[in-house]
């Protein structure tokens, strides 16, 4: 009896421990920054969270900054999916980082939870692509410094097919099937599908997730319901039926299949093309043909740097983020080391890589990724429903309607 109670208690409370883990046991750690501050030797230390694909390019930038100012920046590698949620969970406890790098789509949630501090860039803001600056703003206030712009596009294996004349997605699939490979057009899926990678198809049916106001910012009015949504959902079911889409093909498997030459096309982003070129593949990057008649718009994500609202080193953090990362010098290094389109216009002008230019062209038409907090309610339902439709578990139209209802419900409840 006693043992089982303890056991049950342990399992149950594991949850509480993860939620408040830093509360009791880390008292020793939190004393550390205090000590460095009072010692007031020129340098404080900034803690910065970076995901695994960016830590390599951030290191030389940070080193240069340290050399210049004497301020140490401690880079902590985190999984990209954990940065946002952990930021929300840890900042209120005072244990969070000073700075994070992340895609901008979590911004609304951070502002709503009060964990991110506004940044004033003054005239420096003019040096950035307007779309990138817009992504860093929420409710009329700027919260971050944009680093790079990213979107997905169609990548072709030139050894299998050397030209693309298709104007619609159906033609593209048709042509790809002619290549005689196991897959035609790879779009990564998974148990919860992948609304991000399917979004160009969805927008080509005229069913964007939220309505956009005149200035390009998103409102919380769901736009993906109705007939346009049904048309897209039915199209998904059709692609699933034809085995173009398969929820057992996740990101890793799609990448591997394309690397193995098992498909002439893949819809993916610049984060994967390095691996393709390194493997000696000859690839071209193209815009995505429309499936439903309207332009297919991929989500355009902006990677940015954000400062914690409870940073103990606000001045140093601003010195690094607002005054150093906005320089051409820093953005140039990020580009040469990381190979992503820089958000600073002056640095972006130096990009001459045909692959990156291809992504840029595909992103011209793109839609900014919504950063409103409602977005966090959307992803789960969206992916789950798409997976069910692709896999034929649910009727395309009813499942889509149900999803729209659920998202509306979650938005109303939140």
């Amino acid at each position, binding site marked *: 009896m006693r043992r*089982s109670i303890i056991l049950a208690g342990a399992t149950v409370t594991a949850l509480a421990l993860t939620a408040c883990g830093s509360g009791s046991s880390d008292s020793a750690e939190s004393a550390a920054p205090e000590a460095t501050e009072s010692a007031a030797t020129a340098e404080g230390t900034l803690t910065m969270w970076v995901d695994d694909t960016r830590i390599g390019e951030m290191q030389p930038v940070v080193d240069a900054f340290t050399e210049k100012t004497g301020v140490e920046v401690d880079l902590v590698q985190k999984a990209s999916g954990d940065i946002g949620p952990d930021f*929300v969970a840890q900042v209120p406890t005072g244990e969070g980082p000073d700075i994070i790098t992340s895609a901008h789509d979590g911004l609304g949630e951070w502002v709503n939870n009060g964990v991110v501090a506004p*940044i004033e860039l003054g005239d420096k803001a003019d040096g950035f692509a307007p779309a990138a600056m817009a992504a860093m703003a929420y409710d009329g206030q700027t919260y971050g410094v944009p680093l790079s712009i990213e979107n997905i596009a169609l990548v072709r294996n030139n050894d299998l097919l050397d030209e693309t004349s298709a104007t619609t997605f159906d033609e593209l699939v048709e042509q790809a099937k002619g290549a005689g490979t196991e897959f035609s057009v790879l779009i990564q899926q998974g148990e919860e599908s992948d609304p991000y990678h399917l979004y160009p198809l969805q927008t080509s049916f005229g069913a964007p997730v939220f309505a956009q106001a005149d200035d390009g910012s998103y409102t919380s009015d769901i736009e993906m319901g109705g007939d346009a949504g049904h048309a897209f959902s039915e199209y998904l079911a059709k692609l699933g039926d034809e085995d173009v889409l398969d929820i057992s093909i996740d990101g890793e498997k799609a990448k591997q299949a394309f690397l193995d030459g098992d498909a002439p096309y893949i819809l993916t982003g610049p984060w994967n093309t390095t691996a393709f070129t390194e493997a000696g593949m000859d690839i071209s990057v193209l815009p995505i043909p429309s499936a439903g008649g309207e332009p297919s718009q991929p989500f355009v994500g902006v990677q940015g740097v954000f400062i914690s609202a409870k940073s103990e080193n606000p001045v140093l953090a601003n010195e690094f983020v*607002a005054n150093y990362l906005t320089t051409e010098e820093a953005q140039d290094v990020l580009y040469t080391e990381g190979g992503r389109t820089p958000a600073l216009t002056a640095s972006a002008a130096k990009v001459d890589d045909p692959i990156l230019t291809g992504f840029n062209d595909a992103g011209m038409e793109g839609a900014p990724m919504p950063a409103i907090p409602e977005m*966090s309610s959307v992803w789960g339902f969206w992916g789950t429903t798409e997976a069910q439709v692709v896999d034929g578990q649910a009727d395309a139209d009813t499942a889509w309607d149900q999803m729209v209802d659920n998202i509306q419900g979650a938005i109303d409840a939140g």
Partner: protein
Amino acid sequence: MTHPTAVEGPTTAGSGNGSPPEDSSGTRRPRRGWASHARDVRPGFLVKLALVALANAVGLYGILAAWAVQSWGILAFLVLALVAVDWAYFSRRALAAKYLVPGLIFLFVYQIFAMGYTAYVAFTNYGDGHNSTKDDAIAQISEQNERRVEGSASYPLTVVTQGDELGFAIVDDGQVRVGSAEQPFEAEPDAVVENGSITSIPDGDVLSFVDVAGRQSEITQLRVPLSDDPESGSIRTQDGSTGFVYQPALAYDEDSDTFVDTETGTVYSPSGGGNFVSADGQELTPGWRVGVGFSNFSAMFTDSRMAGPFASIFGWTFVFAALSVLTTFALGLFLAITFNDERVRGRKIYRSLLILPYAFPGFLSALVWSGMLNERFGFVNEVLLGGASVPWLTDPTLAKVSVILVNLWLGFPYMFLITTGALQAIPSDMMEAAKIDGAGRWRMFRSLTLPMLMVSVAPLLIASFAFNFNNFSLIFMLTGGGPNFVGTPYVVGHTDILISMVYSVAFESGSKQYGVASALSILIFIMVGLISWIGFRRTRKLEEL
């Protein structure tokens, strides 16, 4: 499936203290003073001294650290714990405490505190939008709603001190102006400017970068009025070198505890739900944590969209836990009986091989199985079934079967182990007597082996049931709860059990709701506790054989 084999009990900390000095001679009266210790200094005592000294050192460090960050609760706990430890190990009357203290302290830290905290969270609205204190919320709302005055200039700025007071010096049209929180900017013609930055001012000091780094929060909180007219805004800096003119869009009034919109005059006052709300229902974010009574506990039952799936998950949790115990026990027992027969050759090798699944970490095995059961690429479909496409993990019914089968693979070695042990404890003369009485094999199994086995194994079966009831790692790693239900307000699926549903509610369904998740955890805790209690009461009857 990692089984609950770890036994809670007295830890063996402080080796050597278990044997009081001269235990054999049986001294009745405890000797007084330090003299006694001095006389029987043995290696054991030295070890004890070293260990307790270490505990004291760690504890003192913790106390100082807690003092530094003003965590009084932690500080008080550490002081009490340290006193308890020292008393237990240096008092001669505290023999029992010597064994119990380490266990009790860990019990308090890891169990009771965590449970108490979970219970506390269950009664609050902790989650997205309400994840900190009211003070934090006020500070953040003020910060987010302080807007730069449109079209205003940016000023090169230097942080200065005049006496003790912190201030800013700015260059405005080539002229240096100095001000502080109380004193609006005034021209200072005697200041020295080199290369566009101010290097010295009369009756004051210019702060170096080092000094600035030492007083960061003071500097970012400083607002220096631009002029005597409050409407003109005030200058603040974020980086210590550039100043911008700001004007608050929302002003907090401490006396009435409200926010007032400086343009429209709308008043936002604190609501019971943990937000500042205007009269027409506009909420300011972020909010803060407040108590919400029992509403988290009823959340699952009041939402009509959730009722069906919740009932289904509830039922499946019991089915899953029961079937897991039954199948693993049946297979384990069968194998144990088989390999208990002396006619089987190479029993040791078989037995060792059968333990293997138990030796692999459950997390890893579940993950490997999820790969092997992949519909298109999995080893099972591809190789064993010759390219068939059986939807092992994506069909609701089949996914449940897969979960049970994988858990059978993971769990039977444990049952095999314990039943093998229990079987060998059954006296063989009893079996022989039964045989002489003419009982058949089945009859012997039903009436002798099984009841005898149950006496020792039944409590473990109940523990196994409780464990599987909360077997989060298997579900999470194997199916992630999927395939998901269609049309539920949380992302939950057909193979989700209660605990994985809690995880989904807390972390995966868009907005995080720690309050609801904690409430559900407590419900699960009560359920498991109840089942175990009933179960153990029943087992007592088995022992009366």
